[in-house]
């Protein structure tokens, strides 16, 4: 069995989770503070991938980054970067598609912390950054872990978006979910079963681990 789709999937999920951790934490913190119409709009956009058919998102990403036109052409000509049918395209699509799984639980956790924790830190002379790092972040650890695992597991299972923007190039964009589909198309049920079992096992172990770690108090990404 060719294991490259599995490795590619794990690599994609790891990179996506890392990027989303870096982007998601400050965005979730910002969203958790005082509400405004602007923030509600931003949050709605971030949440859209939860309800939007993945093929729709993939279609628009394909159009936006097509090297034949507009922004995609400019990226290709100026920076020699191509997002369509490439691994970096998969990363970009995955970051957008999995964003609500990182941001929603973390934002919810920040909101549940009493405001007085930050205020106490400020009266001790600490900056917003010191407060975030030493007080807020350590106290949302269980939710952060949930967000990381959900993001990773969700990226493992992507299909529509990655197929639209990445296609099915072995070793480059052929991730495990696409390998399952491709094997079924070729009536190779044994390979399809192997890929499916590996994905099932990895995601199950991850989700059950986080449930046990958080003592059954894992929050839904929609909370």
């Amino acid at each position, binding site marked *: 069995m060719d294991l490259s789709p599995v490795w590619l999937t794990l690599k994609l999920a790891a990179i996506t989770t890392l990027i989303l951790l870096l982007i998601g934490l400050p965005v979730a913190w910002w969203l958790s503070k005082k509400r405004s119409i602007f923030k509600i709009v931003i949050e709605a956009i971030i949440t859209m991938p939860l309800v939007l058919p993945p093929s729709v998102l993939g279609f628009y990403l394909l159009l936006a980054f097509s090297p034949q036109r507009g922004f995609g052409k400019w990226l290709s000509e100026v920076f020699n970067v191509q997002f369509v049918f490439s691994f970096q395209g998969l990363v970009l699509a995955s970051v957008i598609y999995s964003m609500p799984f990182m941001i929603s639980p973390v934002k919810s956790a920040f909101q549940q912390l*009493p405001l*007085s*924790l930050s*205020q*106490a*830190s*400020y*009266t*001790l*002379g*600490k*900056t917003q950054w010191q407060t975030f790092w*030493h*007080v807020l972040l*350590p*106290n949302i650890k269980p939710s952060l872990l949930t967000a990381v695992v959900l993001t990773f597991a969700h990226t493992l299972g992507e299909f529509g978006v990655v197929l639209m923007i990445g296609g099915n190039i072995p070793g480059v964009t052929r991730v495990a979910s696409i390998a399952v589909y491709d094997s079924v198309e070729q009536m190779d049920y044994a390979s399809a079963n192997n890929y499916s079992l590996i994905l099932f096992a990895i995601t199950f172990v991850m989700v059950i681990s986080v449930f046990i770690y958080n003592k059954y108090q894992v929050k839904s990404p929609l909370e």
Partner: protein
Amino acid sequence: MIIVDIEKKLKTYTGLQVLRIKKEFTQGSITRVTGPSGAGKTTFIKMIAGLITPDKGSIITNETWFDSSRSINLTPQQRRTGFVFQDYALFPNMTVKQHLEYATNDMQWIDRLLKIGRLDTFTNHKPGHLSGGQQQRLAILRALAIKPKLLLMDEPFSALDIKTKAALITDLQKLFKELNATIIIVSHNPQELDGISNDEIDLQ
């Protein structure tokens, strides 16, 4: 000397109510703030600390902390008031000692505070493993750790038994004198601070 002349609209069950306070606090004084629930006691001390912004007025110490007419509004970090929160606002991830180390690097001062608060045998305990009274004492010690010139306390003794309270207050009074700090204490119990406070504001 702290001169406060501020105004803030408060939302109450009966509609909007305006909180107006004009008061001078002499350095080293201990002032008790009393009043019924919802009168704005907590809002008042949070406005002094810079955690809530008054609608208008001024707060002047040896520098101007707030002046609506000149758009001056120092941050809580710049004001550095010691603040004891009613809900203690302890950091669940930190031990007793880490709370104080987060506030100051002065280890001798930390050791002294721990002894005064009778928490020197609980230094490695996190708030979740402390009693209500111990948590309240830790909140007071943390506020004192920065050696504030102005200490604002919101119901700081409500969870302490009479004996512990009396002992703690005696020790705290010595510290207040040593720091020459101005103290403003919110209390719903008028008798609680008898013989300690030398001034009073009644918010009605």
